[in-house]
């Protein structure tokens, strides 16, 4: 009976795109009432005269109508929600409103930012979808991707645009899978060297695997923004030296093919200026290696020569960025589009607004408190598929089994409210839902706001946290209107 009630709830939340009317077929005799209308427009930023597709999510009870009428403060909008921006000479916010036809007092609104044609752009599109087409049945779930244009340093012709690069706020630096390994990068990029003049090669560590390959220099374009001569990692080129045992012994898989890595690369744009930081500058660790004649030894690397956060190297809008993703249906979606907006408080389209600033410690952590217990090493990471927290005993949610293990599989979708506290003492509650991961994954959708899993001792707010939020990432040491980074704001 509870399971039945869950599905009725899902069916009552209907996307309003092009909806001609009608309502849910609830067999109960609850009076029809609309309780809320939510609006999202993607992309949230368009150029003068451009279009954005808006959708309304109507919630209610009984046999309510999901039909809405669309209005806009500037430009025009069709009956199905396709917005056409006005011609503007300066950056202009436009309000798009959907009003319930059943109850004119119920409406929702969203803001679309319209940039003048030809203006400097600090907006770059992102998408949540299956990942690179070559993955087939092993497609990605809750993977946030973007396209990156890379050039040989100083060249505007020897360039490649590489699609489906994972956007990861948890690991700094650009890493691209070589064409030899099944990726797209085929440019001949100049090698970056260790202090002894030998090739500098990296063992980049993730939780269940590592990427191995040389550091090279590239110009990186994210939209119109350029970071010049940036150290990046080339993953598994044909001439890479053998993986040293101290890298192998980190234990995960060597992610040296498209099917293993699942993406054409990783764009790490987190809180920090470089990937490893002082630890690798002061100690020879199992991260950076000086390689000569196929023999590799661990080496120290000054922070400025480590793999760099490209956003921090833009000439403008370089103090941080915003990840913008719309709210999505709890049933999941096939794809979701959003934006990276570069800079914080540097342009009319990247102000902090009402976002609260949560500063982090030197490792990028803040405190999450649930049921009076505090977890002081919690973090936000767009590269994590789900929100990972606590365990079945604490949450009361059963763990999934088999290939789904590690996720939660509750019979009914369950809400959690957690208080996040920055190192600056700022506190705020966040609420998220956890649904049955096996049901979600088996639905073959690609984007979920309610995928959760097990993690003792800390909260890892993965991609579900980003849906329906503007998440600000302020880079360490950089000034913003909200103070000096590193911090998260939302």
């Amino acid at each position, binding site marked *: 009976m509870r399971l039945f009630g869950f599905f009725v709830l899902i069916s009552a939340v209907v996307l309003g795109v092009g909806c001609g009317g009608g309502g849910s077929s609830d067999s109960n005799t609850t009076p029809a009432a609309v309780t809320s209308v939510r609006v999202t427009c993607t992309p949230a930023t368009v150029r003068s005269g451009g279009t954005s597709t808006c959708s309304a999510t109507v919630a209610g009870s009984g046999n309510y109508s999901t039909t809405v009428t669309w209005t806009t403060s500037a430009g025009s909008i069709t009956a199905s929600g396709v917005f056409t921006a006005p011609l503007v000479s300066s950056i202009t916010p436009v309000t798009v409103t959907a009003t319930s036809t059943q109850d004119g007092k119920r409406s929702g609104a969203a803001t679309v930012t319209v940039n003048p044609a030809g203006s400097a752009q600090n907006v770059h599109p992102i998408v949540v979808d299956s*990942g690179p087409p070559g993955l087939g049945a092993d497609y990605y779930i809750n993977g946030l991707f973007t396209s990156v244009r890379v050039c040989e340093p100083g060249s505007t012709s020897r360039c490649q645009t590489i699609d489906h690069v994972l956007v990861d706020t*948890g690991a700094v630096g650009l890493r691209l899978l070589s064409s030899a390994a099944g990726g797209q990068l085929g440019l001949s990029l100049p090698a970056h060297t260790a202090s002894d003049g030998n090739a500098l090669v990296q063992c*980049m*560590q993730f939780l269940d695997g590592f990427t191995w390959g040389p550091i090279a220099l590239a110009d990186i374009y994210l939209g119109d923004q350029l970071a010049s001569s940036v150290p990046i990692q080339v993953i598994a080129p044909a001439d890479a030296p053998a993986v040293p045992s101290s890298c192998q012994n980190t234990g995960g898989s060597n992610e040296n093919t498209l099917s293993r890595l699942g993406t054409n690369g990783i764009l790490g744009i987190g809180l920090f200026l470089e990937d490893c930081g002082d630890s690798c500058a002061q100690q020879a*660790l199992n991260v950076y290696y000086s390689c000569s004649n196929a023999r590799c030894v661990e080496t120290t690397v000054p922070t400025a020569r480590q793999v760099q956060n490209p956003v921090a190297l833009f000439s403008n809008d370089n103090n941080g960025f915003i990840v913008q993703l719309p709210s999505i249906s709890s049933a999941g979606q096939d794809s979701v589009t959003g934006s990276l907006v570069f800079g914080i408080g540097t342009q009319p389209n990247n102000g902090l607004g009402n976002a609260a600033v949560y500063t982090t410690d030197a*490792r990028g952590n803040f405190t999450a408190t649930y049921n009076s217990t505090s977890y002081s*090493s919690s973090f936000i990471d767009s590269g994590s598929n789900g929100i990972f927290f606590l365990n079945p005993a604490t949450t009361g949610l059963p763990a999934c089994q088999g290939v789904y293990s590690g996720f939660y599989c509750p019979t009914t979708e369950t809400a959690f409210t957690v208080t996040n506290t920055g190192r600056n003492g700022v506190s705020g509650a966040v609420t998220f839902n956890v649904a049955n991961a096996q049901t979600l994954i088996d639905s073959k959708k690609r984007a979920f706001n309610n995928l959760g899993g097990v993690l003792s001792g800390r909260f890892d707010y993965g991609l579900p946290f980003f849906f329906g939020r503007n998440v600000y990432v302020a880079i360490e040491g950089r000034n913003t209107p909200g103070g000096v980074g590193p911090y998260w704001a939302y």
Partner: protein
Amino acid sequence: MVKRSPSKVATICSLVVAACVVSAAPESAYAELGGTVASVENDAAHLKGAVRLAPARAYTLHEIEAATGHVVREYAADDGQVFGVAWEGPTVPDLRQLLGERYFAQFQQAIAKRKTHRRGPVVIETSEFVFEQTGRLRDFRGRAYLPRALPSGVASGAIR
């Protein structure tokens, strides 16, 4: 009560230079999950770290702090068996050494079976072996333990 043990710190290699360790120490010298407490000092040597002992009811915690920023905690029962190990640090440590060959192999097999393109914490749980790892470069944390070897009255939450 935490006291500093007599300094037996050798400076052979860091924990993360496994190739060097292999040539410098016999295989049997590795501390490992399920092994004996006698090998903890060898781990300390590999880590260039100092050991602190924290006796608790039914077990002793050996905490190794390395100059590399890694902290390894090894939990030995009163009979000397290491039943749990926890680690944190800027990089993933040499898990082959900390887990031992048997459980390192189980860890690798479990990783290979995970549904592809999952990114997030690693949680492996069998009746014999539990492994958890979380974080990212600059801040990795993990623990592993043998549920059947936990001393009576000791909860798994003690290993952290």
